[in-house]
């Protein structure tokens, strides 16, 4: 792999100019961009490129990696009551980071502080202490909001405006030129399935339609990061599927999505990583599979059912197991026991066709975690 020189960078910039409308190939694992032929999609964040290397006909771009969002001990306390000023902890030292281009879900029971967290990031509420950066900008900067979209919970739109006028109004607030706004608004309304309703006043819209309009509004400025607070609230199942597909498409285009939702099944379907918030504190973060994996329970698919001999040996090993025909379910005290079980099976002449770690649903995990936390 050879080090790339300035000439190639310049060549690439020319290419970028030529293929300006192209999309993004972001390999998240090694945080690099690549393309292997001129026909492929190209996207370049100039400021984020640290190194360019190429091998054969493949260019490899290493990004100077930037989090889409990073908070450090973000805290918010409210005071309530006129005379007896009670201190209410909405968020307590929340430290989170969200990678660029991922769908991140924030879960939590009502009053956990999910909405407050987003409000702090967008300077709708002001933090008591702690720091945060969004797209590299500290909180409160205008540039931060220029690149963010937001769909709040229970959003309200002026009923006297039509859907397209609502889009134009919020587009203007984003500083988008009038000359492109109408076309852009219509395209987004079509994307969320409101094309036929573009000229209808929003006071006639159902909850689901307002939700779609809210989503379109959140995308009017082509945001790099979108905050969505209960985006599928009030939307029918088909609409939900469409919204999920749209979010995945946005993710494919490189947009980072920050999702607040109670609908755990939806979070499970589309989020790359989640954080669970309870009583204002982050209690868990990780990928869905990390959170839902039952660490020491495995399903082992055998080639033949357990023989009496092998069954006896397994019992002697004091491992808790269950067998149903060719399926063996084992619960271990420690991971090392897995090797011992495999050895017993092999010695007994039983082949292993597959082995999977048992998983729980996100909902089960969430309920168990929150109940456990609250019991403490």
């Amino acid at each position, binding site marked *: 792999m050879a080090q790339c020189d300035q000439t190639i960078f310049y060549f690439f910039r020319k290419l970028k100019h030529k293929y300006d409308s192209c999309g993004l190939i972001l390999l998240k694992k090694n945080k690099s961009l690549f393309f292997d032929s001129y026909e492929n999609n190209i996207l370049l964040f100039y400021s984020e490129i640290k190194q360019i290397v190429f091998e054969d006909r493949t260019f490899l771009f290493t990004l100077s990696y930037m989090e889409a969002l990073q908070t450090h001990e973000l805290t918010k306390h409210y005071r309530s009551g006129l005379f007896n000023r009670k201190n209410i902890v909405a968020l307590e030292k929340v430290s989170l980071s969200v990678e660029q281009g991922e769908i991140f879900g924030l879960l939590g029971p009502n009053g956990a502080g999910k909405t407050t967290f987003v409000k702090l990031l*967008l300077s709708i509420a002001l933090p008591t202490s702690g720091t945060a950066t969004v797209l590299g900008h500290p909180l409160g900067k205008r540039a931060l909001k220029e690149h963010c979209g937001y769909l709040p*919970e229970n959003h309200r739109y002026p009923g006297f405006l039509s859907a397209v006028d609502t889009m134009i109004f*919020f587009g203007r*607030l984003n500083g988008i030129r009038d000359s492109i706004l109408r076309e852009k608004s219509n395209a987004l309304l079509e994307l969320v399935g409101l094309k036929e309703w573009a000229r209808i006043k929003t006071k006639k819209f159902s909850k689901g339609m307002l939700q779609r309009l809210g989503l379109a509004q959140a995308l009017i400025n082509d945001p790099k990061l979108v905050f969505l607070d209960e985006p599928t609230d009030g939307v029918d199942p088909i609409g939900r599927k469409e919204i999920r597909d749209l979010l995945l498409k946005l993710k494919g285009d490189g947009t980072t999505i920050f999702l607040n939702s109670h609908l755990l099944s939806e979070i499970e379907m589309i989020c790359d990583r989640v954080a669970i918030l309870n009583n204002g504190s982050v209690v868990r973060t990780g990928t869905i599979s990390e959170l839902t994996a039952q660490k020491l329970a495995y399903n082992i698919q055998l080639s033949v059912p357990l023989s009496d001999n092998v069954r006896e040996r397994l019992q002697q090993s004091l491992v808790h197991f269950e067998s149903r025909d060719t399926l063996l379910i084992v619960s271990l005290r420690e991971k090392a026991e897995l090797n011992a079980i495999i050895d017993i099976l092999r010695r007994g002449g039983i082949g292993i066709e597959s082995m999977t770690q048992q998983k729980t649903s996100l909902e089960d995990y969430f309920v168990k975690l929150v109940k456990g936390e609250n019991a403490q």
Partner: protein
Amino acid sequence: MFRFTVEEALRRGTLLFYFGVGTIILLVFAFGIGRLPSDPDMVTLFGSPLAHSTSPNFNVVDFILVMLHKQSVSSILLFGIFGIAGLIPGMLEKGTIDLFLSKPLARAELLMARALGAVSGIGLNLAYFFFGIWFIFGLKLGVWHWGFLSSVLYVIYTFVCFFSVVTLVGLITRSAGFSIMLAFVFSIISWGLELREKGLYMLWDNGIYHRLLDALYYLTPQLNSMLENSTRVVGNLPYIPNPAEFSIMPFVYSFVSTCFLYFLSAWYFSRQDY
């Protein structure tokens, strides 16, 4: 935001009602006011003679315009608040403010655009009415009363000052009802402060108390003084002996207090959680 607020203000039922009432008054004058063909100096309303427009010490056209000015201004100022007092608390409603504050706009910018948009709704109504009256009187009576036309600027200015109080109250209470109520209370206080030497001073003969009242008078928009002076631009009523001259000072003092109130509102707004 400014354009949106003007549109929102004009679509509000109360302002549409004022527009309707204004139009009816304009139509009444357009069709009713005139002069007797046999006596061109005699001003008539629907054919009934009112008075000679050239009586010594009494000009009926001035009188009508002053009365119109006084009545329309005091009513639209007080009732105009009904129409637009809800615009600031409305902006602060959950679900609306989140959307506004998530946009790349400074909070002060947002608030000022909202406040100016709101007063523009009333301003447009006032300008429409004043221009209409001025035009009708000019066309039908041949009196192009520039004082009457220009007085609308003073009236709109007075409303901008008045609205600074409503803005601050609306931000603090987040309630249209409270804003309206306190706006009325303020207009009464303003009237009381203007007459402090003849009224409030008598309640307690104490120098500090008197200076406190003076300070309050100069620190708040001088609503009553401004309205009276805006009427003096049109003319004085004939039955008032030794009428006072127009003074720009209440407008100047109110400019300072209005700026202070809007600044205070912007500062308060920028420190609030929504």
